[in-house]
């Protein structure tokens, strides 16, 4: 065992890359849940995004088009969820599960001819001078563009929810759809837009996984990342800034356990691989133990179906 082989600089740098897929998916899900909808299909939308983005990037040679297609793919699948829960008033938990099961199957089907292919490398931030600063350069300024897009998205969502009229309407719909309806807001329309935003973000997250983080396509490659994203939203008590904290925390755990595996720590590989999931559980327990604080911030209408009975 040789712990000195783990470089703190590289650890922090790879943490940001490792956290990005989860960060993208959870900031999307945060908006969905703020509108009062619980979409448990994040895992399914993520993996559809992963394969759609991968296929498009390999097909066109352009990672940008790959990311666009990933967002479209995720949004398209979320539209099925929106249709079922908003118009057909189906149970949100069951529909989310269906989305995940279907997404995993469909992605495996779509991805058959892409196993073992390398995707085109996506652009990295290459600022002159700044990217070459020792330590700070590799840690902060020379990542893939996706890392910065995700950060910008978190800031954007925070600003949107806090300072814009649209954000206020979205939160109103999530807190009390009946009151929002009575005020004349289109509850279903707002929710569908939120669901599609969440789908697009999850799709981007999936593509960040298959095009940047791994980068290749394997069946079921999300391996629970979508579910961890859901847990992070709970951890963050529905606050964008804390989503960032949560995602980086989990990114850190994921990277650290990989580094420990590589350093040959005497703990068996399988037990190290368990750690992100176990830590998710522990964090959920800690969060829900102070349930008053967390529960106060959960959108009041979360998971409840809305039907305007005139």
């Amino acid at each position, binding site marked *: 065992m040789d712990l000195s082989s783990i470089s703190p600089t590289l650890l922090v740098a790879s943490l940001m890359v490792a956290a990005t897929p989860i960060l993208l998916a959870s900031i999307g899900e945060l908006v969905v849940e703020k509108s009062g909808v619980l979409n448990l299909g994040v895992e399914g939308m993520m993996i559809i995004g992963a394969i759609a983005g991968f296929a498009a990037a390999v097909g066109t040679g352009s990672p940008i088009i790959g990311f666009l297609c990933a967002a479209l793919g995720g949004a398209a699948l979320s539209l099925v969820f929106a249709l079922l829960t908003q118009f057909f008033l189906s149970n949100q938990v069951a529909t989310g599960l269906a989305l995940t*099961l279907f997404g995993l199957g469909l992605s495996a089907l779509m991805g058959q001819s892409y196993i073992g292919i390398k995707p085109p490398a996506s652009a990295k931030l290459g600022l002159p001078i700044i990217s070459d600063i020792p330590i700070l350069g590799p840690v902060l300024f020379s990542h893939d563009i996706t890392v910065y897009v995700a950060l910008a998205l978190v800031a954007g969502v925070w600003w949107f929810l806090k300072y814009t009229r649209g954000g206020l309407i979205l939160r109103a719909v999530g807190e009390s759809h009946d009151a929002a309806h009575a005020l004349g807001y289109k509850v279903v329309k707002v929710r569908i837009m939120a669901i599609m935003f969440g789908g697009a973000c999850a799709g981007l997250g999936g593509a960040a996984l298959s095009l940047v983080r791994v980068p290749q396509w394997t069946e079921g490659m999300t391996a*629970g990342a979508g579910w961890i994203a859901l847990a992070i939203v709970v951890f963050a008590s529905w606050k964008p800034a804390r989503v960032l904290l949560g995602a980086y925390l989990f990114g850190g755990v994921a990277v650290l356990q990989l580094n420990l595996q590589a350093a040959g720590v005497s703990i068996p590989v399988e037990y190290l691989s368990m750690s992100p*999931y176990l830590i998710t559980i522990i964090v959920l327990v800690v969060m829900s133990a102070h349930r008053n604080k967390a529960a106060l911030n959960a959108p009041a209408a979360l998971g409840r179906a809305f039907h305007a009975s005139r």
Partner: protein
Amino acid sequence: MLRLEKRPNPSKTWAYMAPVLAVFATMIGGGIMFAVLGKDPFEAIRTIFYDPLFSEFAWYYRPQLLVKGAPLIMIAIGLSMGFRAGIWNIGAEGQYIIGAICGAGVALAVYPAQSAFIFPTMIFFGALGGFVWAMIPAILKTRFGTNEILVSLMLVYVAEQLLASMSLGLLKNPEGFGFPGSRNLQQYASAHNAELWTGTGIHMGVMFAFIAVIFAYVLLARHQMGFHIRLTGESPKAAKFAGVNPKRLVVYCLGFSGALAGLAGMFEVSGPSGQISIDFNVGYGFTAIIVAFLGRLHPIGILLAGLLMALTYIGGEIAQSSLGLPSAAIQAFQGMLLFFLLALDMLTNFKLKLASAGSHP
């Protein structure tokens, strides 16, 4: 414009019709998917739904129906209890794995002793393993209010890693030439979950699946616990006034479904599968969620739905070898079924009404 109107009571007719229609809608949707994949949709649908039952080789496939259906039915029966009461155990796959590890572990610990007590002990520990694994989300929920959906699901990944560790380490076959995986329990008479009657496919697990169906039916229809489960699902407020203890319900529902999933895993590892290996689990725990919903969370419905889902597994395998249909297509097909079911379910609770634009200002 079409308009939805809430029914005063859920429609009985539609409750029965929705699953049937969903299956037909999935055949059409799946047919389109197969056509996109460049396969003849009619041939594919016939291969999946008809050939396992009535083709030349049906004698081989029909027993498979019970072999594949039994774990699905057993797990789905357990899940349906919780789903009725709004307790979402979606980690049955993990409980299934742990049940298999515990059951097989007992056998491998006493190998090569032969005794009539070994198999019953394995059954006990299989159920216990699943039960304990399900108790983790149950106790975290009752004690700290932690979301049981996320915890039970996270534990699936933990169980998968544990399975990998077991098949590479502790339970690895010492005479296996270094290959991962345990000894084959099919070659260990006292631990083998053999067919009870040759050629029928009926093993002990199939019997247990039928017992589970009957047990669940009686519990829901006749026992106070079943009444509490139904009451909590239909009206949590009324359940509170009736003195239902929600925490006890969480423990019962998760424990029951965990034990059944563990049993299913144990019967699978000692019978059809034979050994603990890295890819021992094939997703029965997740497919059982579809089975539970397709069966309307009703024991008899689940029995039929489990057999139907087993049919798609077998038909899918046939289509894989004869038509070159990818195995993932069947997974997508099963997911599609749940979508259609959830969509058509609306008609159980709502009426579609044709509304002219002027009549409702």
